[in-house]
């Protein structure tokens, strides 16, 4: 990809560390901490992440690697920091007043909290879908065109093609192809949520962050979203927060268990659900709390 997160990339200094394709100085491999080593090419590496809402610490010393092209589920009791963690990955927490981040979040080896990082560009590369479907009160077509239009002018023909591609990608095309120019608010909740996924896809992101994307939907719509996640797997790195352990088991390759702001463990999903390493994980999975 030719895009760069950095607004103006500085010329590399003499004797500089190798410059990544994205224009920023890559973090020395030796500086990287262990969790990343499990994966040859992680998409995100999170290192010693602390997060504060004012004086209230919501995340403590989170180390996590998120493998590229796979589905990572985040589970844990409500209030344990799953959403907060997800929102540190595209810096949506910047919008909340009086918050503070410590530690590193590397996307393709670049620290996304580096002061030169262009947050707008970051959010285009790391798309997000929220708990409640939130289509804009405009037409289906315009919802999808919104992201690409922010980046510049797109010809009508290209946009038509893009809209169709994204709606296919979100398994929504057949249901809406005859009413692209009607209000998105006329869709059912499940359709709206898939539209929000299509809208995120239109930015051609590398990563999709899904924060309990099915919690407001009925079981049938939930199943469609889960199918869709399966289809997107491989093309996108997906991180999904879910309240529902069965859902995590169904859709994810890796699962991270959060408890009281800490990442207790992060292992392949099958392993987490059969042989959890920590007592807290086991207690949660067996429903002893949460």
């Amino acid at each position, binding site marked *: 990809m030719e895009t760069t997160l950095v607004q103006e990339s500085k010329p590399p200094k003499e004797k500089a560390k190798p410059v990544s394709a994205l224009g920023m100085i890559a973090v020395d491999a030796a500086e990287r901490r262990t969790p990343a080593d499990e994966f040859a090419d992680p998409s995100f590496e999170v290192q010693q992440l602390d997060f504060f809402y004012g004086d209230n610490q919501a995340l403590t010393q989170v180390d996590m690697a998120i493998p590229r092209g796979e589905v990572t589920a985040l589970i844990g009791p409500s209030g344990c920091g799953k959403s907060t963690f997800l929102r540190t990955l595209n810096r949506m927490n910047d919008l909340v007043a009086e918050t503070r981040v410590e530690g590193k979040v590397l996307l393709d080896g670049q620290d996304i909290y580096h002061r030169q990082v262009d947050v707008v560009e970051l959010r285009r590369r790391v798309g997000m879908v929220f708990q409640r479907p939130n289509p804009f009160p405009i037409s289906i077509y315009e919802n999808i065109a919104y992201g690409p239009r922010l980046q510049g002018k797109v010809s009508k023909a290209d946009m038509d093609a893009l809209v169709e591609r994204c709606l296919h990608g979100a398994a929504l095309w057949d249901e809406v192809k005859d009413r692209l120019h009607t*209000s998105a*608010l006329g869709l059912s909740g499940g359709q709206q949520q898939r539209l929000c996924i299509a809208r*995120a896809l239109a*930015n051609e992101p590398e990563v999709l962050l899904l924060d309990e994307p099915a919690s407001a939907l009925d079981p049938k719509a939930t199943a469609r979203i889960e199918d869709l996640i399966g289809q997107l797997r491989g093309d996108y790195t997906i991180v999904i927060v879910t309240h529902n352990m069965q859902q995590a088991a169904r859709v994810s390759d890796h699962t991270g268990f959060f408890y009281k702001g800490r990442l207790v463990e992060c292992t392949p999903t099958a392993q987490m659900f059969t042989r959890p390493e920590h007592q807290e994980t086991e207690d949660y999975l067996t429903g002893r709390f949460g």
Partner: protein
Amino acid sequence: MTPSNPPADSAPESPARGTLRGAPSRHARRWKERGILSLLNSAALFSVFITLAILWVLGAETSNFFAQDEVSVGEFFGTAQWNPLLGAEKHFGIWSLVCGTFLVAGVALLVAVPLGLVTAIYLSEYAHPRVRAILKPSLEVLAGIPTVVYGFFALTLITPALKTFSEGFGSFNALAAGIAVGILILPIITSLSEDALRAVPQSLRDGAFGLGATRFDTSFKVVFPAALSGITSAVLLAAARAIGETMIVALAAGSTPKVTMDVRDEIQTMTGFMVQMALGDVSNYGVEYYSMYAVAAMLFVLTLAFTLVGSWIRKRYREVYD
């Protein structure tokens, strides 16, 4: 009145529950309910009655006006010369007063709409909560100033300032009055628009930011359009207020009815004329006295039209969020 009420009394009651509800207290409660209901009904009926009474007086006196020999409906709606006081040369063409009203209201909206909307967007989307906590109440103080103060302000400050720019300004002129009315309606537009903007669900902003929108993109391309119906109704409400504003125009706009688009001219508005009539020593039963009611009726129809269009727009374009 309320057929949807569950038929509580006809439902069979078990003996055990019957002892819990003593018959006398149930009786008393029902009478109390009925008393409260009829009190509320009569309060509502009273305001309807007052409205109808006003309309009736307005209609009766207006038809008295049109019954006069000097007056014809054709002249009233078909011409633009308004001269109710000049002995034999009396003319009753409403359009010069309507023109004066709309000239002042137009200037007021030109001042207040851009300023008010930008302020509302700033307060709702950009301002730090602490800044908003100071700014919003101070705007509301602006709304509490008596309009006669604005009138003097227009007459003694705005007009002299305007005169330094152009010789063409009269001592009374539409622009000074319009600017003052604009300042008067600024808090209405700002406050109501800000409410409309803040009513836009946070999830829409999140959606836009999540797609890489800047704060500007989010405010102007997502939040503002989503709040448009509320903003439109705010503007129409402010317009109705500007059209009905009396004290400022009576003091600063003058008393020369004419059809003009030149804001430097002295003009007269419908309300300005009514003040002149009500305060001047016109006989209580002359044609000029009745003309006041005809003008009032016209003003009523115009503001009603604004209100109706406003609520139609609000219904037609309202977005439903769950």
